[in-house]
């Protein structure tokens, strides 16, 4: 048995070792087949950490402000480096358009702290309006994809019943499919009514990929 034949036998033997127990080396070596099904991918959105792991309860912190007799503003950043927005389009060509939008958990939702509230989508800034500016954001394609055909939405404010949903990111049919992009640095700001009682106010926003 020459060196090549010996090595081939070694590979066949190790194939048997790897694929499970067998009683007959010769048969196993000749008939081993590997198969793996990869299902068609889907569109998805998630908040991931810097390692790409899903964040269990993603949040956006709004810096603390001090009680004021005047209207003031709080701000935060949607898509920090430790909580990136990851848009994954695992669908296969031909490409289909997609939209990543943000909305309140309900048009009637409010910033709430115990019994105190203020608005995020009021027609009057003095009662609370949130501005979302995706233009400050950065799109980072992952793997070897590009940002072609992927655009940031325009800066806009929520307005109950009129603009309940704001576009953060859009993919056209010229965007990579499949493709995956991380979005960071989308600025959020919310006016806070004058004399708003102190408290830890929270609000839920929903990111939708469709």
């Amino acid at each position, binding site marked *: 048995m020459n060196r090549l034949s010996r*090595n081939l036998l*070694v*590979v066949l033997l*190790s*194939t048997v*070792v*790897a694929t499970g127990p067998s009683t007959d080396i010769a048969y196993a070596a000749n008939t081993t087949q*590997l198969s793996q099904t*990869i299902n*068609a991918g*889907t*569109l*998805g*959105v*998630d908040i991931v950490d810097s390692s790409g792991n*899903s964040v269990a*309860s*993603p*949040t956006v*912190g*709004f810096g*603390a402000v001090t009680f004021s007799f005047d209207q003031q503003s709080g701000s*935060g950043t*949607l898509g920090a480096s430790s909580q990136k927005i*990851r848009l*994954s389009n*695992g*669908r*296969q060509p031909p490409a289909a*358009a*997609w*939209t*990543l*939008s943000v909305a309140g*958990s*309900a*048009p009637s939702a409010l*910033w709430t702290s115990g019994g105190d509230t203020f608005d995020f989508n009021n027609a009057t800034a003095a009662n609370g309006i949130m501005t979302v*500016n995706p*233009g400050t954001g950065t799109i980072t394609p992952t793997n070897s994809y590009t940002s072609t055909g992927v655009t*940031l*939405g*325009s800066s*806009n404010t929520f307005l109950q019943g009129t603009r309940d*949903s704001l*576009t953060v990111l*859009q993919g*056209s*049919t*010229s965007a990579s499919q499949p493709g995956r992009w991380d979005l960071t640095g989308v600025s959020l700001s919310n006016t806070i009514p004058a004399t708003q009682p102190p408290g*830890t*106010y*929270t609000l*839920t*926003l*929903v*990111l*939708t*990929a*469709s």
Partner: protein
Amino acid sequence: MQRLFLIISTAAVLLTLPLNLRGLEYGGLGGRPANPNPAIPNSQNWFIYELAAGTVKEDAVIISNGGTEPVTALIYPADATRSSDGGFALKQQTETMTGVGSWVRLYPNDRPTFAAGSNTSIIEWCGSSLDGNGSRANRLTPTQKLELIAWCRGVANHELTIEGGREISLPFIMSAPPGLSVGEHTGGIVIQKKQPTADLTESGIQITTRVGVRIYQTVPGTVKKELRISGFNISPAAQPGYYTVTLSLSNGSSVSLNQLSRISITNLWTRQHQTIERPGQVLHDDELVINFPLKKPFLGRLRLQATVTYDVDGQPQLITSRIIHVTNVHWSLLIILVLVLISIGGMLIKRRRAHSNQETTRYTVKAHEDVSAIADRFHLSWQQLAKLNQLKPPYRLTPGQVLIIPKQKTSRTRSTSRKNH
């Protein structure tokens, strides 16, 4: 030794192969149509129906968890809603559904065992079981009939937990209500991730993520398809060194239209030309806003125009925007230009000062004086004096003629004369 190394390394490669393949999969919650029709474009991504009013369709959505951990998801149909910039969005579960979101019913549960035994479609099965003439219906007790009626009604939403790497097929029935208007009606099936409530120690926002599988239901009929350019502008972008070109397209028809936008950009100074293309869909009764980032030229005057093509019953339609111009000079060039202007200004001021020093006075010619004599008197050459006074050969002067004499020279003359005296 070499043999042992080969065994271990080959076994290691084979053992890790399935893991590598799994790594190619998409990780996360998602959904897609279970029964795409290859003849219908995009039916592998979206539910695309053409149902007449008063008809129903049975289908299924595949819900997948491409991650490795189990995920609990809330599944529900929702009406489409307009997002800013013309994006497709879906209503929240808390909102009242009046369109597609109210026409879809989910069937997550197994058929009641007392009435099992059929693998026909839900529509047929429920129809034959409940119409009173079906053999099954006649054998059911009143309680079983009520249970069957409840099952056949389906549910509006469903919560399920999917193991990592698994898929679940969830049947549903889509109904096009009687009297539904001709044209497109949109919505989707939403797969929303259920997550624990965040423990916020400061004011902030909790983020929930969800995915929607779009539903396009079109009631056949004659519809007018018309697209128009409702805005075309350029403005400085938040990112330094870039413009944002904004193109807005309005679709006043009752169906979504696919379009191809082309922005033609020419630098009129450098003659460089580029075209940006952006295909996309404009939803019915909506306005699509497309933002193009455009790098500012180092130096140039840009001419921009958009052309949009879309299809109406096989006939390509073309619409064009107004032409807009924008001039850009890089800041470094601006600084150079300012410095040059400052230098030129300085030179002009200097010359003006020098010129002001050379202001003139007048001298009246007396009898028997000629050009040379007067020039000598004022320390000028006769040619300078002749040129300044535009005297022509033979340069004769007449008494009483007034000559212009440079002031500097006159003062010098005065001082000289004073010295002479």
